[in-house]
């Protein structure tokens, strides 16, 4: 029997119950990637202490895969050291979600880019 779902159960779980949706008012780093004209937009808020992500929240405009990868990446980075999360790629996220449809793989790149952008903002803010 083949899979009948549009997305895997894991993806659907993160889509239906996205973790860490929202905004961190006093975020240490904020990254916004994508643009609504081309498709998805993700905004990622990080709270960082001692080189550790102590909180992460997101807002995403995009398809099911974009929302699920956003949710998953916040889960993956929370509690991790900055050094560690630099290892996290879109592949890590996709795998953690149990895979994505081929034509949706590009969505997972957004999450990876959002982390980069938020860290860049953190370094810039710190000076």
């Amino acid at each position, binding site marked *: 029997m083949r899979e009948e779902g549009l997305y895997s159960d894991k993806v659907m779980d993160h889509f239906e119950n996205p973790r860490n949706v929202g905004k961190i008012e006093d975020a240490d780093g904020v990254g916004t990637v994508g643009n609504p004209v081309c498709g998805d937009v993700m905004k990622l808020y990080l709270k960082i202490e001692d080189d550790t992500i102590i909180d992460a929240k997101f807002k995403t*405009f*995009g*398809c099911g895969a974009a929302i699920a990868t956003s949710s998953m990446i916040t889960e993956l980075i929370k509690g991790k050291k900055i050094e560690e999360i630099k290892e996290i790629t879109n592949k890590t996220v996709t795998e953690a979600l149990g895979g994505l449809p081929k034509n949706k793989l590009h969505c997972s790149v957004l999450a990876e880019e959002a982390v980069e952008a938020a860290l860049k903002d953190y370094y810039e803010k710190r000076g």
Partner: protein
Amino acid sequence: MKIVYLDNNATTPLHPEVLEEMLPFLKEDFGNPSSLHQFGRKVKVKIDEAREKVAGIIGADPSEIVFTGGGSEADNLAIKGVAFASKEKGRHIITSQIEHHAVLNTCKYLERNGYRITYIPVDKYGMVKPEDVAEAISDDTILITIHHSNNEIGTIQPIKEISKIAEERGIIFHTDAVQSLGKLPLNVDDMGVTLLSVSAHKLNGPKGVGACYIRKGIRRLHPLINGGNQEMKRRAGTENVAGIIGFSKACEIASACMEEERERLISLRDKLQNGLTEKISHVRLNGHPTERLPTTLNMSFEYVEGETLMINLDLEGIAVSTGSACSSGSLEPSHVLVAMGIPYEVIHGSLRFSLGRENTEEDIERVLEVLPPIVEKVRKMSPLWEE
């Protein structure tokens, strides 16, 4: 959970009476209409009757109906049929920017193969201006192909005005009436068309069967499928007998209750449109406010993305579509909405609700109950909404 199917422009459930009518041809009456023995003759007679019925619903002569393997094949037969047959006479074709892919990609195919295509733009309601068509005509124009109504937004084109222009200039005029058949009264003479495409599965008939109306006396038209002598040599291949019989029954049923059904659907559609406009802020209608298919409501919910809404509705048992279901797997913004000048971010938030004969008031009420909280939830998640 009650399932609410609101994607009837993509395809419709088979009418139970249509299935009833098809079944004998999937059982004992299995003959090949070309066979001269009793099995063949019995079925041949039924195909002829079916042709009369399908011809009748569009005011055509039975000899002008060629059954095909669907609407896309009918479009290809009409367009390539004319293009290949007239290539010495000219290689210019006029179409619109918002045709179904069966027309658009056929034109693009011809464009890659030595033809010149003019894609007429549309106004913000998705309407083609007849004068734009008139202006585009040149000495080597061999075909004008403009659809009757649009599958995504439901806008109905000014076909009579366009056909008048075509006729004055002696140019063959084709219209893709796939979305109109069974929903609007169609008469090939009133419309003044030379060629017209229809498809059974859009009016509660079976998938994989359609027809091309080809006006008597048309100058040469190349068949798409050469072979045996079926369909007046215009479409070879053993007939999809059960499909053709089902198609004719679907036409018969749709004809019989068209006026009544039209009113009913318009009232449901407007109830949905008004309800959504009332209950949700920042929504927009895509398509013409009045010159529109009774079945079709396309709306944009700003600041959110359509697939997310679609999946959320699907989880609630409500089936709708974002963009055109017929271009499978495609993630590009709908070419129809783009041509209408709608901003991309608004396009991304569009949903199409398309109604059919099985929909009821309760269906509409369910959407009006379920969709507003979904939009609210998804907007809360959207980085565009807060800004």
